[in-house]
């Protein structure tokens, strides 16, 4: 079903992604918002509503942290709402902003994503323990890496994928990130480096994992008549989709993300896309772990099941390839302040379509891109198609 109103992205801003930021979460949010506003052509007084995305309260260590972050995000005396789908929150944020504006309730919406993971001790990963079932899983002494390792193993097993093929994703994204000013862990590494990095939870190795980060991002959304008036290059939200699978994750075959496919189909239908691999020019799938980029390319229907590693090996997903994937450098290279990392992908598509990314620019004047995030217990897919 087509939405009744068109919504555009007209501004975007990011902070640096950092292991330990001096700034508070409220201050990081402000930096991102200020940058997004100044690039949008709107003033703060023109902003009618604010959306906040931020992942577990257990990172920042503030209960109801959406309320705590409100002032830095521009929520003072404004309609302000926080949505939440775990790791999918960053890409969901723009969907939330989209329906606020597409509903006709608001003409403009400021969408902010923040994460300050460094407050959490002894290690931010500790906060993730509490995502497992409290009665049937946590007593086993769980850690976050388990679920990724279990999923990666299953994916590799079903499609007979090698570690080398997965390592290529780390190599590509970390290199792409060298050109990203926000990047936290950009570096030139080889497949050998990745395969020699220590095993964390086999088959996951250190260089296949994104870091924990502090950071924020923001975008400005506007309804059609405002976007056309104030923006020279509005980027349209052509399709949105989201989908949540069962929490009984041990009852599913993890080799394929059905929830991503469902979310993608919803977004493509809205955007009128029939052949995603041909009609989409850039993709920013969620890549907190190297295999995830491949897994998600398949869920996004950008290739057949099990084919993503082959395309990667052929160089198709390089910036100058036929289908550039994570030209930003992704979470593996730029960093992973959870919700902000998702919004970073939206920012990347926005800037790529406007031709504003300098050395990161993919060739051929791309007209359409897809961004996707994932979260929860390998369970939620959030997908957005942007176009000019």
């Amino acid at each position, binding site marked *: *079903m*087509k*939405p*009744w*109103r068109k919504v555009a992205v007209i501004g975007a801003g990011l902070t640096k992604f950092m292991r330990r930021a001096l700034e508070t979460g409220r201050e990081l949010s402000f930096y991102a918002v200020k940058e997004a506003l100044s690039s949008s052509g709107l003033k703060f007084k023109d902003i009618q509503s604010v959306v906040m995305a931020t*992942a*577990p*309260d*257990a990172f920042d*260590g*503030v*209960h*109801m942290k*959406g*309320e*705590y972050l*409100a*002032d830095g995000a521009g*929520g*003072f*005396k*404004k*309609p*302000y*709402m*926080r*949505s*939440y*789908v*775990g*790791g999918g929150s960053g890409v969901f944020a723009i969907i*939330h902003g*989209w*329906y606020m504006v*597409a*509903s*006709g*309730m608001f003409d403009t919406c400021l969408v902010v994503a923040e994460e300050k993971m460094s407050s959490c001790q002894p290690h931010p990963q500790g906060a*993730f*323990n*509490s*995502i497992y*079932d*409290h009665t049937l899983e946590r007593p086993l002494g769980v850690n976050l890496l388990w679920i990724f390792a279990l999923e990666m193993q299953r994916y590799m097993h079903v499609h007979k994928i090698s570690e080398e093929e997965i390592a290529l994703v780390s190599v590509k994204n970390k290199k792409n990130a060298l050109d990203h000013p926000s990047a936290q862990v950009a570096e030139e590494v080889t497949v050998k480096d990745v395969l020699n990095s220590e095993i964390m939870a086999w088959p996951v190795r250190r260089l296949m994992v994104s870091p924990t980060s502090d950071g924020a991002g923001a975008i400005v959304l506007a309804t059609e008549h405002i976007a056309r008036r104030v923006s020279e290059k509005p980027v349209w939200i052509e399709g949105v*989709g*989201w*989908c*949540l*699978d*069962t*929490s*009984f994750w041990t009852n599913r075959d993890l080799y394929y993300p*059905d*929830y991503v496919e469902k*979310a993608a189909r*919803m977004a493509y239908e809205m955007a009128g896309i029939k052949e995603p691999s041909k009609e989409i020019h850039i993709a920013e799938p969620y890549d907190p772990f190297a295999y995830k980029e491949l897994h998600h390319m398949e869920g996004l229907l950008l290739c057949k099941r099990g084919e993503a590693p082959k395309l990667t090996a052929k160089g198709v997903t390089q910036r100058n390839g036929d289908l550039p994937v994570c030209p930003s450098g992704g979470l593996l290279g730029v960093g992973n302040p959870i919700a902000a990392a998702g919004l970073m992908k939206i920012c990347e598509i926005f800037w790529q379509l406007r031709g504003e990314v300098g050395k990161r620019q993919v060739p051929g004047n791309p007209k359409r891109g897809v961004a996707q995030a994932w*979260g*929860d*217990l390998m369970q*939620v897919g959030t997908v957005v198609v942007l176009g000019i």
Partner: protein
Amino acid sequence: MKEQRVGIIGVGAVPARGVSPDVSYREMIFEAAQKAYEEAGIEPQDVDTFVCLSEDFNEGVSIFDEYVPDQLGAVLKPVHTICGDGLYGIASVFMQLRTGVFQIGVVEAHSKLSNIVIRGEVEEMALEPLCSRWTGFHPYFVAGLEMRRFLFETGFKEEDCAEVVKRMKMNAMFNPLAAHPAKISVDDVLDSKPIATPLKEFDIAPQADGAVVIVLAREDVIRSLKKDAVWIEGISFFTGEPHLDSRDFGKATYAELSAKKALEIAGIKNIRKNVQLIELCDVFSYKALQHIEATGLCKKGESGILLKEGFFDFDGEIPVNLSGGHLGIGSMPEATVLYQVLEVVKQLRGEAGKRQVKNATIGLVQSWRGIPTSSGATLILGV
């Protein structure tokens, strides 16, 4: 097609209670969902979008939205969480239905507060960490300071707040879903333990466990289903001053802003003339009075006087919190306000039994996110 209305076609709730050790949150929500779908005459497959309300630390689970789809029949469907009270959930679904993409949406809220061993520890974490957590006090101190300031600015006495408690708990006697009905006196409230003066134990709504599910749909769908709906005439949500250091402690800014906007959307100029019943947040006794004034029902300093005169009673001019409110139903951070929505829906449909208000066509529901926030919403329902 552009300005399609949105209406409520089904509500379901389990009776609120102090503890609920015989059921898991999943089982509680499943029961509420079954009731709501049955009333709406739909199956979960018919639903296009689901919104769940929760905060991680209240559940003891990070990324709690993982655990919501199954008991709602929402597996592999669009589902997301809103971190706000129940009215934020209704606002979210309302907006989604108005995009034109969705036809039927569901809002879910629940509470298992009884599962938190030391709730004060969780609540303290909502305070800004560097300047507001130094005390080691239960955050009720914020309410104590607010209450004193409110009494100072209005000239009300603690007795006036105690009147609220007496009346709300009495109202709850007639609501089978309420967890904390009681017949008590003003003196009982005044004699209760001081918590953060002038706030006393009975000024605070006792907590409860419960679950509510509400089904909303777009006008064209409601027509084709041949259902009677309770329509959303206006909805608005606002954050006031998020931090304590710049807040006006005598005022509920969020309530003033959201009520004004919601009434404007509904085209209501005179709330006293056009609204027949009101449900508002009374999680602390003084909040009821503050919110009565903030919605524009009366001037500042009048609410307590009108309350004593019976203006807000069942047989008064405009009944307030016939459900019993937070003080009577029990405090459930996201869910209580949806029990209040349920009350207004039943009233407007003429299904409220003994406590049925005559000729009610418009009702207003107002919410607050609780300490230490300054966020809240207003919903106007009509038939």
